[in-house]
């Protein structure tokens, strides 16, 4: 029995998002340096410094959110009070 329709849509959406991100980033980092600066294709891509700043900022934000979550879960008492 195949997966439910919503699950399939979400799954394939994730796959296409991953594919798009990979292609965009690859072209940005690997292909663009070899393209002359006056070509039109450069208009589709941000200035190259964002190729490093973007993922770095995303990684830092992800780490910050994860640590906030871990600390919150550790220090909020549920049923057992910390004695």
């Amino acid at each position, binding site marked *: *029995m*195949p*997966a*439910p329709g919503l*699950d*399939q849509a*979400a*799954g*394939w*959406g*994730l*796959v296409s*998002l*991953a*594919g798009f*991100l*990979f292609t965009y*980033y*690859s072209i940005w*980092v*690997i292909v663009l*340096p*070899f393209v002359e600066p006056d070509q039109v294709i450069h208009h589709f891509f941000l200035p190259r410094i964002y*190729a*490093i700043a973007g*993922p*770095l900022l995303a990684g830092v934000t992800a780490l910050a959110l994860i640590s906030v979550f871990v600390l919150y879960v550790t220090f909020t008492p549920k049923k057992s009070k910390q004695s």
Partner: protein
Amino acid sequence: MTVPKLFQWLAGVCSFMTVWLAYVVGYFSVNLRKEYHEIIVVLPLYLLISFACYSLAVIGYRVATFNNCEEASIELKQEIEAARKDLEKKNYKFISDWK
């Protein structure tokens, strides 16, 4: 003795990083075109991002192709019902009213 996957990965990553660091620090003098130099400097971040994209794609694919099993779900619900009745008979106190 087969080497665990983790150690294989660590070995690969460490050898790559040594070569890359040696190039970036300027340990050996190589005259590359400006474009190649630009690409090599960003290479570890690029590999990390592509690995993240690959993981995301695999997760999405597994979610999309994970088969539903209606009969197993119905059978499981029946078994839970039977177990609940049996335990109620023996005066077991349930925390939740989950049906």
